């Protein structure tokens, strides 16, 4: 437990000052019983919408500090994995653990209270495909809303932290702008900063460049590359940007039909994939 706390309070959070772990992989933490404590662990997850099975017996584990990218054809269940991790959706069966704590059940096996669920969920941050910035608030107000409301930080403290993260994403000059005054790429960088001010230990990135043209997407990916390089935060990334996935990931999981059909290092997946389905998917994406 002490090992987990140590990681949570230091290495696993994003430090906008740039002083953080440069290790690409972090050893799996261990509990007092020497069992591995994963940053996030999906155990036999099934998710159905009516008769449609989106995820089938999904098992996925992410080490603290590890960057895992989920790739696969549209509708294969990648985004659902992120939404389940954020408890924006509930699985039909199975369990999800964040640093060893279930986000669904307590130790007696009964459903968690919403307060308890929120406490565990607070260790995750999420960036969405459509940015989802609050259009009626300025950039600074977007960044300080959650720290002042949820973390009960003072306005001055939240502002100072917000400015640090704005500098990190290169948009410190846009504090008073409204989202509608920014380009898509700028909005997405603000959305990343907004997620980071809550100091998450796990960052969930859901197709963050899908709504952007390739030129603008580059500036967003540069920011993520930097966070991945400079921080020990765990990342679960859904993307169709194969070059980015290859550069930033420690591990890639290939999804098809709600299952992981193959996973491994970027080199293994991109150079010598085992599955024929992975090969055909990569061919179709890379030739596109």
């Amino acid at each position: 437990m002490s090992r987990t706390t140590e990681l949570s309070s230091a290495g696993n959070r994003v430090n906008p000052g740039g002083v953080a772990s440069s290790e690409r992989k972090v050893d799996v933490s261990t509990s007092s019983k020497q069992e591995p404590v994963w940053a996030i662990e999906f155990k036999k997850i099934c998710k159905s919408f009516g008769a449609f099975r989106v995820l089938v017996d999904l098992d996925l584990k992410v080490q603290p500090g590890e960057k895992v990218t989920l790739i696969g054809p549209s509708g294969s269940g990648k985004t659902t994995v992120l939404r389940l991790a954020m408890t924006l959706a509930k699985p039909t069966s199975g369990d999800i653990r964040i640093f060893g704590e279930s986000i669904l059940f307590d130790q007696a096996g009964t459903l968690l209270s919403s307060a308890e669920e929120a406490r565990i969920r607070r260790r995750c941050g999420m960036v969405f495909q459509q940015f989802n910035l609050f259009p009626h608030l300025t950039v600074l107000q977007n960044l300080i809303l959650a720290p002042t409301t949820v973390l009960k930080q003072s306005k001055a403290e939240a502002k100072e932290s917000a400015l640090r993260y704005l500098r990190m994403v290169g948009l410190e000059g846009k504090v008073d702008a409204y989202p509608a005054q920014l380009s898509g790429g700028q909005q997405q960088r603000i959305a990343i900063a907004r997620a980071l001010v809550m100091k998450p230990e796990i960052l969930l990135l859901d197709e963050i460049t899908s709504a952007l043209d390739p030129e603008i997407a580059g500036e967003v990916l540069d920011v993520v590359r930097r966070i991945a390089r400079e921080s020990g935060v765990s990342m679960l990334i859904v993307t169709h940007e194969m070059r980015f996935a290859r550069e930033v990931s420690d591990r890639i999981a290939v999804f098809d039909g709600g299952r992981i059909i193959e996973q491994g290092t970027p080199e293994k997946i991109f150079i010598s994939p085992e599955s024929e389905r992975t090969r055909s998917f990569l061919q179709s994406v890379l030739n596109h």
Partner: protein
Amino acid sequence: MMAILEYWPVLLKGLWITVTVSLCTIIGGAIGAVIIGGLRLSSSTAVRVATMVFVELWRSPSALVWLFWVYYALPMVTGTRINPLTAAILVLLLEASVYGSEVVRSGLEAVNRGQSDACYALGLNKSQSFIKVVLPQALSQIVPGFGSMARTMFKWTAIVSFIGVQDLLYVSQFVRAQTFETTKVFLLLAVVYWILCLGVAFAFRALEQVLPLNRALRAAQASSSASQLGDNVSAIGAA
């Protein structure tokens, strides 16, 4: 006309009652509409169904029927007499709340679902999301619709004279009976209602201007126009 003006203290008192009933109806109705509209989107099925039944029950009979019911019939059931002004405000306030709740519901539903998801992902609870994110954006949809309804509600206040509340219509009838100046009295009445209705419309227009989302969109429009102007000036300079 001079004969009518001799009754100005009475007319002024009637005007005051009309304005009071209107303000109570519009302000109270706005608060009630947000509460009922919010409950109509509750995650609890029981709350949603109960609110829907209440809304449908209330808005089916005319407001005048409810007014007669509250003022004449209810005291017979409860044994407690109710003051006509209180009965009038209560009925009109509920009428505004119920009709306004539909405006609020559609406004809340128009806010992108992604906004609630973002609040949730940032750790805000439901009431924090509603108060700080969803409602401020929904107001841009709600206020114009509610403004139009407020004008209608203002005109509906005239029904309070049916239970003896001495509003503008009631005292005008009294002045007409005293002076026999039917045309002039009703012309004056129409002009006063027209001015007050216009006042309500202007108040809501002013309110629309200060809504947070409208302010943000205006700022974006202004900066886009400024950059367009800058581009044009540069193009002219280059030419």
